[in-house]
């Protein structure tokens, strides 16, 4: 378990570093093409950071509202409250606010900008189908997301991805409006000649591909964090079969989720509203927010 946790953390750092280099390279190329130096990159980063900060600061309320989550008291859901309180003790964190989502499909998510402002929401379906140990496994997973500040990490990744998208957008527009002039011979600084043309072609290709690459990276981070939360959640409960059992039940449950949408898919314990059961094709895996559930169960069972 310990080494799994360490490996997952290492991989996250690698992915983030890779993204940073990618953003830097893209910004540099953008600067070269437009002759604006590094300013373009900085502006794009600032805009993306401002947008992400807003969602970081106020996102939890939006997400809870979008899921139609309702706060529940200890009297209404004593078992859930006791379990959340127990795992908060195990993690040494304050007790998060507790919400229930009126959905038949078993699922759960955690949100909030830091452990002091965190919330855990579970669906009614989860409460109905899981026994105590399974519910503890699920809550342990969510508690790990809170302790690791995955919401913050998500914000950082979203900022990077956002700036890539912004730069790519700028570049495409520039090719459309100003760039054409360059090929037509009206460009101001054409000292590069052929070299510049190659650069421009590479830039155009990147402008088209970059947003897709950025999305893939973002999803890779998301999947890595799910594995990490699984391992750490098992660490908290000291009982991996609990979460494994819960995931097995979720895997066999075919109830679609009504509140599922792409904007919040990455938050849930398991990707909501799978259309056709399993996803094992590498291409599908590349574009999913969560690792294949069978893999997660297998890893938990090996612990």
């Amino acid at each position, binding site marked *: 378990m310990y080494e799994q946790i360490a490996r997952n953390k290492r991989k996250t750092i690698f992915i983030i570093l890779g993204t940073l280099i990618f953003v830097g390279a893209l910004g540099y190329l953008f600067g070269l093409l437009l002759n604006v130096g590094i300013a373009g990159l900085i502006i794009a980063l600032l805009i993306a950071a401002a947008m992400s900060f807003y969602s970081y600061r106020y996102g939890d309320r939006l997400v809870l509202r979008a899921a139609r989550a309702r706060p529940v008291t200890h009297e209404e859901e004593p*078992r859930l409250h006791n379990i959340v309180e*127990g795992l908060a003790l*195990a993690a040494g964190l304050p007790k998060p606010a507790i919400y229930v989502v009126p959905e038949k499909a078993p699922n759960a998510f955690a949100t909030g900008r830091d452990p002091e402002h965190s919330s855990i929401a579970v669906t009614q379906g989860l409460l109905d189908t899981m026994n*105590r140990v399974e519910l503890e496994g699920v809550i342990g997973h969510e508690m790990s997301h809170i302790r690791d500040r995955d919401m913050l990490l998500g914000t950082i990744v979203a900022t990077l991805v956002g700036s890539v998208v912004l730069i790519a957008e700028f570049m495409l527009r520039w090719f459309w409006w100003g760039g054409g002039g360059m090929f037509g011979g009206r460009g101001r600084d054409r000292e590069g000649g052929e070299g510049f043309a190659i650069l421009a072609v590479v830039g155009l290709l990147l402008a088209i591909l970059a947003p897709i690459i950025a999305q893939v990276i973002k999803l890779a981070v998301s999947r890595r964090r799910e594995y990490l939360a699984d391992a750490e959640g098992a660490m*908290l409960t000291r009982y991996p079969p609990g979460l494994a059992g819960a995931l097995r039940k979720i895997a066999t449950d075919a109830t679609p989720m009504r509140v599922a949408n792409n904007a919040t898919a990455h938050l849930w314990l398991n990707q909501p509203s799978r259309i056709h059961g399993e996803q094992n094709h590498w291409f599908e895996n590349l574009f999913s927010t969560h690792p294949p559930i069978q893999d997660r169960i297998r890893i938990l069972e090996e612990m």
Partner: protein
Amino acid sequence: MLVVLAIVLGLVVLVLLYGVVTYNRLVRLRVRAENAWSQIDVQLRRRYDLIPNLVQSVKGYAEHERELFEEVAQLRTQAQSASGVQAQAQAENQLTQGINRLIAVAERYPDLKASQNFLALQEELTGTESKIAYARQFYNDTVQALNTLIQSFPSRIVANLAGFTPREFFEIEEPARGPVSVQF
């Protein structure tokens, strides 16, 4: 000459820096261990509060078990007045056994077992017991980190100078896991 002086000075600064960092880590762990202990205490108290309710509700059905009621009450007082980590753990273990016997008695009365009041009480007891276990886990993890730092070289020098002593682990019996045992 100047070079040697610079090296010596540099080493002294490094050692001092290490001392400060280690001291702060020790303090942080000690504070965390104290907090963790008070969290255990909160949950233990919560359990003491639940016991009279449990005794009351079983009493209504099993009047003749007077001896058991008295024993549990006595174990509860004992646990409440226990001092020191080890004595506390021992008293809590005995109390847990007493509570389990009470619940076993309650199991014999289907009416009691099915009553809303008793079910709620049982959930609170189970919940509190697992909270005790989780708080204990966090406490013991913290104590382990603290003790390792106090005992391993070179941090033990800092710990000795600042008067840090290893803390005791809180060893209580884990509530059994698994769906079967949860149903009692």
